[in-house]
């Protein structure tokens, strides 16, 4: 009796073990209907009403142009977007036709088989020629285009005008000056960080690396190799990590900080400078430093130059599983058009991805001048490889900075280990 029960159980386990785990098969629907309902997922911003209004006017125009179509827009929370979008890829039946997504996710989503290749449509779109090169790069994987840039976000140097006036300082014009100014402020005002920096603030650290001529990785078309341990990159890592210490931002506090923590430190009046984005303005305005700050581009190595910045931002993409491909592509083009991006800028202050529209926006809004200048100088993007998501999630770069900052490893050893981990990730997805 006992034996037979065991045998049955064993047989059952073996029988099911033989099957592969579940996959959802090829997700493209093969259909291209010209009427019906289009579902759109956009991110819910902190103050979402103006965005909804801007989107509504585009949607109204679309529904007018295409008889028998209806568009339902759902605003999904930013915190759970990764799960929502993964779930949409897994279950094409409940997936939307068009999504907004963070531009560092492009390569990963393409590998997941989630986004439709729209290279031909993008090429045939007359406005696309004015898309700035970095934004175009952020929708491109292996030379194919998988969406349209929606807006860009970029970081620059915020500084306290009251502190600088009091100490008779000028905004720094080079990275050497930035470091010496930060230390000078800390020495004169020990209650302040000269510049708030964070060991986990990857996108605040990258400009230092890039300014010294370093790169995250080199290569194209899926096969990348880490360049984080090249001499140039190491110089950048040294420059950034030299800002951690009792003479600027004590390692015990700053090693664990991320981007938001540094913005919070600046907004609450604990730092004289911080690297923050055009999108951080609301957070800073809500703090105690309101009215006492200004922004300049983050300086590069040579006096008067601008450090290359990371071009963040969001894209719009058509899902591979859509059964309304032509309609979805048209709606994407309308939402990402010059006119719609201009309206989105007026509503939300998000920087347009077209160079000419952006220039016009900067002329209207002086606050944006340093950000637009930064974008015009030079911007960089993360490697267009699905491995980037893995490198980001495994905190390879924060670990490297924190190892240096806390004195666990020197720059060479930490960068070497990080390069090894990055190459493993690049290799495993290749």
């Amino acid at each position, binding site marked *: 009796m006992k034996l037979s029960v065991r045998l049955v159980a064993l047989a059952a386990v073996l029988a099911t*073990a033989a099957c592969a785990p579940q996959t959802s*098969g090829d997700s493209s629907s093969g259909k291209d209907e010209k009427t019906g309902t289009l579902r759109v997922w956009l991110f819910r911003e902190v103050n979402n009403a103006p965005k909804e209004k801007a989107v509504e006017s585009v949607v109204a125009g679309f529904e007018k142009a295409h008889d028998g179509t209806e568009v339902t827009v759902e605003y999904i929370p930013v915190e759970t977007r990764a799960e929502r979008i993964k779930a949409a890829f897994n279950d094409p039946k409940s997936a939307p036709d068009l999504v907004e997504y963070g531009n560092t996710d492009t390569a990963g989503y393409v590998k997941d088989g989630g986004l439709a290749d729209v290279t031909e449509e993008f090429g045939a779109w007359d406005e696309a020629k004015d898309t700035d090169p970095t934004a175009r790069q952020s929708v491109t994987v292996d030379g194919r285009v998988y969406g349209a840039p929606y807006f860009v976000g970029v970081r620059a140097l915020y500084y306290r005008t009251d502190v600088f006036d009091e100490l008779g300082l000028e905004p720094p014009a080079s990275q050497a000056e930035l470091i010496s100014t930060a230390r000078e402020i800390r020495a004169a005002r020990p209650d302040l960080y000269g510049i708030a920096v964070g*060991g986990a603030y990857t996108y605040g650290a990258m400009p230092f690396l890039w300014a010294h001529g370093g790169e995250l990785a080199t290569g194209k078309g899926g096969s990348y190799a880490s360049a984080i341990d090249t001499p140039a990159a190491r110089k950048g890592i040294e420059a950034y990590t030299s800002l951690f210490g009792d003479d600027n931002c004590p390692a015990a506090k700053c090693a664990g900080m991320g981007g938001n923590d540094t913005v919070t430190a600046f907004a609450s009046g604990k730092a004289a400078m911080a690297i923050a984005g055009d999108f951080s303005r609301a957070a800073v305005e809500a703090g105690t430093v309101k009215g006492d700050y200004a922004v300049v581009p983050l300086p590069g190595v040579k006096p008067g130059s601008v450090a290359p910045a990371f071009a963040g931002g969001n894209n719009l993409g058509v899902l591979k599983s859509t059964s309304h491909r032509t309609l979805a592509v048209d709606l994407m083009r309308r939402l990402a058009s010059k006119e719609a991006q201009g309206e989105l800028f007026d509503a939300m202050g998000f920087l347009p991805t077209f160079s000419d529209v952006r220039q016009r926006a900067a002329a209207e809004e002086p606050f944006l001048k340093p950000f637009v200048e930064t974008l015009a100088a030079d911007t960089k993007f993360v490697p267009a490889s699905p491995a980037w998501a893995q490198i980001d999630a495994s905190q390879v770069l924060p670990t490297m900075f924190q190892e240096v900052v806390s004195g666990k490893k020197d720059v060479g050893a930490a960068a070497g280990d990080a390069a090894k981990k990055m190459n493993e990730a690049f290799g495993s997805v290749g």
Partner: protein
Amino acid sequence: MRGRPAPRVAAPPRTPRPPRGRGRTRGAGLTPWLYLAPALVVLGGLLAYPVQQLGVISLFRYTQAQVSGGEPATFQGLGNYRELLADEQFRQVLLTTVLFAAACVVSTLAVGCALAVLLTRVSAVPRLALMLAGLGAWATPAVTGSTVWLLLFDADFGPVNRILGLGDHSWTYGRYSAFLLVLLEVVWCSFPFVMITVYAGIRAVPAEVLEAAALDGASQWRVWRSVLAPMLRPILVVVTVQSVIWDFKVFTQIYVMTGGGGIAGQNLVLNVYAYQKAFASSQYGLGAAIGVVMLLVLLAVTLVYLRLLRRQGEEL
């Protein structure tokens, strides 16, 4: 006790009872299974099936691309396990987790048992106060508890630093000080379970036994060591096994209090590491392999523990 033969075996029925003979053995074979069937079906669906799926997934190259159909799932045998064992960080994290969980279990049991004994020795009002404090800690969600502890020990605004006069000392910067902080929180939120359970056990011990020990002049420690602990053994076994399982799987406290694994990953434990691998970077196959390893470690620890107790002559 072991050498004494069981009375049933020693005294077989002298007069045979023909009507029950064969029928009884067959019934004894089937009836328990019939009674067990509903529970087994539920357990099979909720436990065996997921565990089996975990095992299957751990043998495949299974990432988001495979789940959503971008690439086919490829069988790679023990490839995920090989990758894990070759990963130096995994070995370090495994060792850290075992040591940290052991420290948490020992501290939780010590605090819980000591307070349980204290509960039996104090009058009604302080007992009620202690009970309420314990229940409050128990009922606090782990995320809330961790956040509050973090605020208490905050470098700039925390009352602990102010009271101890530590200036702006950061508790989460050093590896051991961060682990200590997390350990305190884990003990704080899991001692009430031990305390209440052991307290209930002590209450069930006949008063005469304790009285007799007291008359013999036994000290408090001696009473615990020679009277209460042996009598409470089944309860202590349960709370120990529970604590081992909980503390080995600790996630929330580390994730919240050390910001997802501490400076340069110095405070990573297995569950947070598995989360990084499985969900944050969508390597479900590798994450499943970590899950299987955790399952095996926990099973091994629990079985060895129960085995040791058996050796000492206790039936559970």
